[in-house]
């Protein structure tokens, strides 16, 4: 049994314009010491699916199952879920300022979090641990900065505080939702290094949500690519980067200028992501797919051997040669 097992998760938000099908059937597992990267564009459902696990999608219709150490999270009463949140499962968000309370010192917030879940801890003990945690995430002079307010930290330092808080209770699973998107490149590198180091040290399971395949290239064990609320490709890291099968994954990789500096014309994915009020029929990607076949709008391809696409399984990879083979197979 994996630490977290999500099966056929579906999330729908009612809106005045009709129901928005944000997540349309996602399954994955994560184990201790492993990192799962979830990649997708805005509106792919990558954030909603993990927020749902934490009971953070108020007012949404949720179906499917998500078992954490065998306990069902979907439909779990809020008080029980709250006990899990923070203690067993922590979240790190893109914008630390919005998840830290502006009117309390960071130390107070970490102490509160510790004492909430471990009532036996004294204030002094909790404070000592808070200082340790801040030091652990690389905040200089943690014994002094523990009494600072969130706004007194820079963006990168604030994200470190967030991580310190997320680790304070030694959780088994950390969900990081675009943790470095708001940060500059050099700071992003610092934070990613920190996360890798801490994960190895504490043997936590980590879910990294990002829109940028580059961010998780160095750390994800497996990658789940989402599009229009569904997983389109789910494979081990090397396979995703070096032998991608789904045209959308290929499109993501080819949209980015090559690291070698080659100035070949970029091959963007045409079109724009669909509205989830009226998701496309069949394969969600077919309106933008260069290789769409007659069956694609009609029949939904199942996620078989890591990819949800009707193209032959042996055509993988990026570049013109793979593109040619795909076109041939699609009869285009």
């Amino acid at each position, binding site marked *: 049994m994996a630490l977290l097992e999500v099966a056929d998760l579906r999330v729908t938000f009612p809106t005045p314009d009709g129901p928005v099908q944000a997540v349309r059937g996602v399954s994955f597992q994560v184990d201790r010491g492993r990192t799962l990267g979830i990649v997708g564009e805005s509106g792919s459902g990558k954030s909603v699916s993990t927020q749902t696990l934490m009971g953070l999608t108020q007012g949404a219709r949720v179906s499917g199952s998500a078992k954490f150490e065998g306990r069902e999270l979907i439909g779990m009463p809020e008080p029980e879920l709250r006990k899990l949140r923070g203690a067993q499962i922590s979240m790190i968000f893109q914008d630390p300022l919005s998840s830290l309370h502006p009117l309390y010192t960071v130390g107070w917030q970490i102490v509160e979090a510790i004492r909430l879940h471990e009532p036996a801890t004294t204030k002094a003990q909790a404070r000592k641990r808070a200082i340790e945690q801040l030091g652990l995430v690389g905040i200089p002079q943690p014994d002094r900065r523990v009494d600072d307010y969130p706004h007194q930290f820079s963006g990168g330092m604030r994200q470190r505080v967030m991580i310190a808080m997320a680790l304070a209770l030694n959780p088994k699973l950390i969900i990081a939702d675009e943790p470095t998107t708001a940060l500059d490149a050099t700071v992003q590198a610092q934070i990613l290094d920190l996360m890798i180091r801490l994960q190895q040290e504490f043997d936590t399971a980590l879910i990294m949500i990002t829109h940028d395949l580059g961010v998780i290239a160095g750390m994800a064990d497996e990658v789940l690519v989402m599009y229009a609320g569904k997983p389109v490709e789910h494979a081990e890291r090397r396979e995703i980067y070096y032998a991608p099968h789904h045209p959308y994954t290929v499109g993501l990789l080819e949209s980015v200028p090559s690291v070698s500096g080659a100035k070949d014309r970029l091959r963007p994915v045409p079109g*724009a992501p669909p509205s989830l009020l009226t998701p496309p029929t069949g394969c969600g990607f077919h309106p933008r797919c260069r290789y769409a076949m007659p069956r694609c709008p009609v029949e939904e391809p199942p996620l078989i051997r890591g990819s949800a696409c009707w193209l032959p399984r042996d055509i993988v990879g990026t570049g013109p040669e793979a593109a040619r083979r795909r076109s041939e197979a699609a009869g285009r």
Partner: protein
Amino acid sequence: MTALLRVNDVRKYFPIKEGLLIRREVGRVHAVDGVTLEVQPGETLGIVGESGCGKSTLARCIAGLHEVTSGSIEYHGLDRSRGQIQMIFQDPYGSLNPRRRVGSIIADPLVIHRSGTPAERRNRVRELMELVGLNPEHYNRFPAEFSGGQRQRIGIARALALRPRLIVCDEPVSALDVSIQAQVINLLKDLQSELGLTYVFIAHDLSVVRYVSDRVAVMYLGKVVEIAPAEQLYRSPQHPYTNALLSAASVADPDLAAKRERILLTGDVPSPILPPPACRFHPRCPKAAPRCSAEEPLLLGEDHRTACHYPGVMI
């Protein structure tokens, strides 16, 4: 070849004022602090740097949106009053007025500069929409009905209306989804070769800048620390900050990511209100020596200029 644009020791300071009724200056943000560079006709000059380095302020100075505090910007054969310098903005949601139809948004520069009759303007708008890959039939729609990528195309069409020669692009793709970014980059490149445009291209994404630029300037805390032809800068970066920046960039290639040595900088970018003396990078620089905190390095060299006492490739 004469430069299209010459930026001479430009400084832009923003006063920080305090007080309720009588507001007095209590400090200054040194957003751009002595930048000299030139832009050649037909080239793309990329400007990279992290938030707060002054790249957007410099772009706005060049586009004439900010008055410079000191220094000068010389335009050669560029008439700002005829709209020959235009700007493309970062946020495709914020840069279009949500309450106006896209046709009238794109026609704005024509109306403001009293160019053509209403019928001519309408034709020009349709022409522009087609040029940037939008359906001209949609000129009566509102921005909310377009996706992020399409909105950026609307912004580009507007910038092209007066047939400008120089376009300042301020992070034109960083707010877009990855799969859409490439569409806009391709469009910008096509327009450049078709219309002979010159670009000043601001971005924080190093690989995008490398892809579009002929030359690249790296900024740190209001100053240019290195400027060179793009390939040269990426292959043999001389300034320690450029080295760190390049080593920190994420790459969608696990093997490369694993192989790479990252130069991890310590600490954060200092405040531009009280920038460090001499070399501004010295408090974070892995190579810093006593000289660095005493003497400011000049931007030296021919094609490849670096402002460092101890330049050299580190990655």
